[in-house]
């Protein structure tokens, strides 16, 4: 008695949904949006800010949601675009103001899981933005190449080459221990 579409259980929301249904879909998606944002930004506060901005944008643009596209893809795209906006503004501000930012927040954590999270986030943060997004969408969010390419608005070939380069760089940064950890 399997019902349809379990593979899209976060996404299979009727996109002509009422505001209330859209809201419910967003609540279901929030954990994944937060994880995605965390992979993009490294900072937990920034990540939640980003998700909040994306949710607000989504609610004001509900009419643009395409009926054939899953809500998750739409939302990942909004999160990413909000992040690109923020990076542009921040890059400008960083050039404008502060040398003080570098080197203050490098991980001093010593607990295992948390330290590994920091190591992974630091490595992700050092990737070029488009590689980071590709890695986050495919490797962390588990999306197909096709979905990830759609979200990033690039051809699949571009997506796979970004993904390959991002992976290579991560493997180098995180070392070969990744498979050999107990």
């Amino acid at each position, binding site marked *: 008695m399997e019902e349809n579409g379990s593979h899209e259980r976060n996404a299979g929301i009727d996109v002509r949904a009422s*505001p209330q249904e859209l*809201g419910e879909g*967003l*609540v279901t998606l*929030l*954990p*994944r949006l*937060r*994880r995605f944002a*965390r*992979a993009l930004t490294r*900072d937990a*506060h*920034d990540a*939640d*800010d*980003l*998700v*909040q*901005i994306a*949710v*607000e944008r989504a*609610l004001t643009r509900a009419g643009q949601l395409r009926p054939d596209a899953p809500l998750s893809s739409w939302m990942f795209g909004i999160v990413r675009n909000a992040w690109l906006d*923020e990076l542009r*503004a*921040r890059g*400008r*501000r*960083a*050039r*404008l*103001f*502060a*040398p*003080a*930012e570098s080197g203050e927040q490098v991980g001093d954590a010593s607990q295992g*899981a948390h330290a*590994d*999270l920091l*190591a*992974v*986030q630091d490595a992700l943060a050092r990737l070029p933005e488009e590689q980071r997004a590709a*890695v986050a969408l*495919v*490797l*962390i969010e588990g999306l*197909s*190449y096709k979905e990830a390419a759609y979200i990033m608005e690039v051809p699949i070939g571009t997506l*796979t*080459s970004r993904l*390959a380069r991002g*992976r*290579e760089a*991560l*493997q180098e940064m*995180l070392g*070969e221990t*990744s*498979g050999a*950890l107990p």
Partner: protein
Amino acid sequence: MNFSDETVMAYADGELDAATRAALEAAMALDAQLAQRVARHRALRGRLRAALDPVLDEPLPERLLASVRGAPAPPHAADVIALKRKAVPRWSWPQWGAIAASLVGGALLGPLLLRAPADGALVSRDGQVPASGALARALTGQLASSQPPGAPVQIGVSFRAGNGDYCRTFVLRGTSALAGLACRGQEAWRLEVLAQNPAQPAAAAGYRPAGSALPTSVARTLDELIAGEPLDAGAEAAARERGWQPITRGKTPPGAPAPPGPPRDPDH
């Protein structure tokens, strides 16, 4: 049989078509190195997931749930990073008046204070309130690269606005700090925005405000105004030499025929 890196990657990601997948699996059975390449890809995915999956189990912040419901989000603590939409802390009106007046002088801010701040900042975009006194002196004479650490006005950055005017950000020191942005008109500086600076006023002398610590309204105004890159030390000094007057592009030499069209219209 050789498999490219992208093919191996696609296999690890479950993206290969059935035929290639079968071929690769057959090869893998005989080729330990190939199997290892696949394992490397999978291990990386596993490590990334292990690091980030715990986020899924975190309790959802109330402000996110509120935003889904379309409710205005409550401001949250540790308001350090200037993502654009964060609220600027509101100050009561008498506080504003007292602080601003004590720092810059009542004469300057008198007209300004008649206007209620929209978002906790004193915006005077339409009002053209001229900056004067200590602030104007610092804006005109002080270079960011060589300002006295204890000066009551600290200059942040200088830049060109889209209309060609020079603008500078500044922080006023005092019992509480104000930060703002002023642009140079033909005869005087005019304040574009003035807001409470969230940075600790007790910070050491010589402290330069990080971009992230600028009041949101100032950062936003800066984002709106700036054209290109900020001035470096050399360009800043050169601009001071010119009295912060814009370099007039295509200025008509005396006697030459006037160019068609409105004189201030940029031609690109």
